């Protein structure tokens, strides 16, 4: 009977894998990812420029170069949310019933980390800000219950989603302020057009509990900080076009502005070294290291790719290493384990390059990763 069933399969009908396994035949299966990810597994985010309705993230093993799985994220994909307390992955995306026309629907999709397939979704107001991806597009608050997504229509606001209950909570108006930088339990801050920070607090149900606007801490017209700040413990490090670091302590209810320091010496400036890229900063928390993607360029080159990664000890605020990259990079990331890897990608060449952050040696290159890599994330 099994032979008959196999013939039926060949006759364009279906056959169960169990049946196939009995004879000289492979058992056809569907792979799943293990419950625990490895520290060197890396997310490679691709907005799919040219087909922005179809953004993707690829999970890649930076040790072996193995391609592990694809996450089909959806339209104007920016970044993943990777909670440590729930076995879930989230991404905000924009959909149209006819790919790029019809009624717009914005959703937060909940993915299963073992299949990278959707298990649920929460519809949010169709107003999320889109464009060149930034990791500050959305964030989970520190207790990981609420996800905040930045909206712009051009009115500026934030959508709050309760990821525990999987329901939309509310849209909070935040005029003049943009993007999401989580700062504590039910709290995040936003960058405002006058160089100040807006701290937004949430009630226990996720609704807005009040906003506090700081004094301006930089001049957005003379030397703006980029949107691509990195967080290390309770500090957000904002870095300006001219290479000044503005550390902001967010342990308390209101931000504390710590002393500014420079990534560049006078000599570096004379040589036109500049920060630049779409994701130009990374940190290693335990080692207290800051990685900055650098290039020589003129003013307004803050989005140009870099060919060096400079490494700073955040305790001494001194540069301790200069890694010359083999080729341009527009995004960098560092794994958070004790044998960290430095990861780089360039939006114009769909590959991931892996470096030893101590020796600067290029360890390997993983090619054919989508079309336009916009960001890198670690678990």
């Amino acid at each position, binding site marked *: 009977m099994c032979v008959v069933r196999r013939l039926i399969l*060949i006759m364009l009908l279906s056959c169960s894998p169990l049946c196939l396994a009995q*004879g*000289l035949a*492979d058992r056809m299966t569907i792979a799943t990812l293990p419950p625990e990810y490895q520290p060197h597994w890396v997310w490679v985010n691709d907005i799919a420029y040219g087909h922005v309705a179809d953004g993707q993230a690829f999970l890649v093993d930076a040790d072996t170069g193995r391609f592990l799985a694809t996450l089909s994220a959806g339209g104007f994909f920016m970044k993943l949310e990777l909670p440590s307390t729930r076995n879930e992955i989230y991404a905000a995306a924009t959909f149209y019933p006819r790919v790029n026309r019809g009624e717009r629907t914005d959703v937060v999709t909940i993915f299963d980390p073992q299949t990278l397939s959707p298990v649920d979704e929460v519809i949010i107001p169709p107003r999320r800000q889109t464009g060149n991806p930034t990791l500050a597009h959305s964030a989970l608050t520190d207790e990981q219950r609420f996800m905040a997504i930045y909206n712009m229509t051009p009115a500026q606001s934030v959508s709050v989603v309760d990821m525990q209950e999987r329901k939309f909570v509310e849209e909070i108006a935040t005029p003049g302020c943009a993007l999401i930088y989580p700062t504590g339990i039910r709290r995040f801050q936003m960058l405002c057009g006058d160089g100040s920070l807006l701290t937004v607090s949430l009630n226990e149900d996720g609704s807005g509990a009040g906003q506090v606007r700081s004094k301006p801490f930089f001049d957005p017209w003379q030397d703006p900080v980029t949107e691509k700040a990195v967080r290390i413990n309770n500090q957000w490090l904002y870095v300006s076009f001219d290479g000044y670091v503005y550390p902001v302590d967010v342990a308390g209810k209101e931000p504390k502005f710590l002393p500014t320091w420079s990534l560049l010496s006078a000599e570096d400036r004379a040589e036109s070294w500049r920060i630049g890229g779409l994701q130009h900063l990374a940190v290693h928390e335990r080692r207290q290291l800051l990685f900055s993607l650098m290039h020589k360029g003129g003013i307004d080159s803050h989005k140009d790719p870099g060919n060096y990664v400079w490494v700073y000890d955040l305790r001494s605020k001194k540069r301790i290493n200069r890694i010359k990259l083999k080729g341009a990079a527009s995004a960098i990331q560092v794994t958070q384990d004790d044998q960290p890897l430095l990861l780089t990608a360039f939006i114009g060449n769909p590959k991931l390059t892996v470096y030893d952050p101590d020796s600067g040696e290029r360890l390997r290159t993983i090619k054919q990763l989508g079309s336009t890599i916009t960001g890198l994330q670690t678990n």
Partner: protein
Amino acid sequence: MKLVDRWVERSVRGVAQRTSRRHFMSRLGVLLVGGSVLPLLPVARSNESSVADLPDDASLEGTAGDPRSCNYWRHCAIDGAPCSCCGGSQTACPPGTELSAITWIGTCRNPGNGKNYIISYNDCCGKSTCGRCMCFRSEGDKPIYVPQKSNDINWCQGTNSNIYHCTIAAVIGQSADE
């Protein structure tokens, strides 16, 4: 896109690489059932062998034993992305995709034991197309109107989504023409 590389490569390889599968395929019987042409493939009976008899890739020389290579022996009739490069293997769909139940069938010669095997090229479906290791060999491929032998058809059929992701290459039997 690596399409260009693969196709150029294939053009260059030319005649050399194409062994005479056609000769075998042409001897397949066909059975007309209700206006539809169905092949009676000479699949060896399943009780004559066991899973242990599946040929061992590790013993093969060069890329003929590497499921991520276009030269992998089971890929003789493929047109698409081998799932081995996309998070799956030659018999497993990548995480979160759906296995198509129906497909097209090729016959590939294992260079280790010289035997011919029936290969089922099932598509894995539901995630955006994997563009890795694109491979075009098409040995024994027939036009779309001979569906069971056509690799131009998207075999993501009867699945929840018909979006093609990649293709596996599973042995489903040994060819009886030895």
